């Protein structure tokens, strides 16, 4: 996990700060955090993360476009959902691990660890 470059996409500052803290505590390098799809795509254009943490709902917008861009770049991601029984019907959001808010620290760490493993490419 050390030196792992993690992109955070989350629209609530306080929650983003918590994720930052958590990830930095694990030795990760934090990219972003980006509060909107536009900001996230801008960050991705400039830097390539190893993994990403995506809040599914960003100020009313779905994070789908970011997920698509990440897939294109071969960057795995974990989704964070706020709704209880949220339907992730978009293609780009399928087959990704997802966690519910509020996210448990060790849950997130574990999910990222799995995603970051070499065999996942």
């Amino acid at each position, binding site marked *: 996990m050390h030196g792992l470059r993690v992109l955070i996409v989350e629209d*609530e*500052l*306080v929650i983003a*700060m*918590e994720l930052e*803290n958590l990830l930095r505590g694990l030795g990760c390098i934090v990219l972003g955090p980006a509060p909107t799809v536009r900001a996230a795509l801008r960050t991705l254009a400039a830097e390539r993360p190893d993994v990403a943490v995506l809040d599914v709902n960003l100020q009313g917008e779905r994070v789908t476009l970011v997920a698509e861009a990440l897939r294109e770049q071969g960057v795995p991601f974990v989704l964070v959902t706020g709704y209880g029984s949220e339907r992730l019907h978009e293609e780009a959001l399928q087959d990704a691990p997802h966690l519910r808010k509020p996210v448990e620290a060790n849950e997130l760490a574990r999910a990222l660890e799995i995603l970051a493993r070499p065999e996942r490419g």
Partner: protein
Amino acid sequence: MTEVVDTIRQPLLILSEDLRVRSANRAFYEMFRVDRAETEGCLIYELGDHQWDIPRLRELLSEILPQRRTVEEFEVEHPFEGIGEKIMLLSARTLPRAVNRQPLILVAIEDVTEQRRSRWLLEHQKELAEKIVDTVREPLLVLHQDLRVQSANRAFYDTFNVEPAETEGCMVFDLGNGQWDIPELRRLLSEILPSNDFFEDFEVQHDFPTIGHRVMLLNARRVDHLQLVLLAIEDVTERRRVEQEREMLVSELNHRVKNLFAVVRALATLGDDGRSAEEYRDVLLARMGALARTHDLLFESQWRGAELRSLAGMLQPFAGERTEAIDVDGAPVELNARQALSVGLVLHELATNAAKYGALSVLEGRVHLSWQIEDADEGRLVRLRWEERGGPPVTAPQETGFGTQLIRRAFGFELDGTADLAFEPEGLRLEAMFPLS
């Protein structure tokens, strides 16, 4: 002759010219439950309990019959002894005979009691049905089997704002601006209905003439014996809108509650900043308090937003008895929920810092909180300023302090704006700007 007459199912009487019964057929004896003895030879007016002794019948048989030769369908309504209330139609004619033979009169009696009763019932049922159709609050169309409108109820004319003239006789698919001319509905009415007898809850969403966009549910039922089709239409537009709104509200609520938990938890894990457990707890509780009070403002407006002045008002406790210590100056401006929550937290951090290390920590200190609304190309902006004066000499803050980070980042991160936090020797100064919509 007797055999022929006896085969006829209709009661028959043969009278002599003087209107006495020469003979009657079996059907007569059976219907009236009398026998030959009490019938033959009697005057027709004397039969039974004189049920045929009616002035009008006398008139017909005695006067008109000799000239006209036939009496058709003379109605007699009478409670007959032993057989009850009956309605009979009498037909009488003179039988031609050979010259030297006495003329005979043939009287045929038709029992139309059941017929009349059925017709009466039908009439009343029809009237009842029509009244029901008209009283029902839902628009109803009564169609012939060929799907032409036979009639519509008042509710239909009221709902669709049309007249009978443009409705009755028309094909259902031609009504209005063709709103019912939908392939699926055509199929249902023309194909399914004949074999399936009814269908329910067929939805039609359409821009109806005059009344605009509505969502309607249709129920249809075949009424075979009348060769009609009943079509009931329910306007569920309002209901749908309310349901959708409610769903959205519940969704929104779920989202907010989940987020709130996450925010509170985040606040709890952040900002310990090397404090003692007790101090940390107090700081955390204070932050949660600010969050709660901001939510109170939002509840009051049903989540529409909060006045910036009201958010500033939440800071009064920090000024304590020196109410003039926090000077608030700015025009009324309503922030949306997101903006209110962000700014609420930021103001809380600013005031907390001021009370601990800044202007509000000494008697002479003052905080000037002011804002202006500016018009820019993209819309309106809020320009906010927090200025501390008269406090203790300002030293460089804990750069990594949660509060300071929040103040610096909130406007850019959450509100699509900018913030400049300066620790000037005279006092801390924040200048922030964010778009209103």
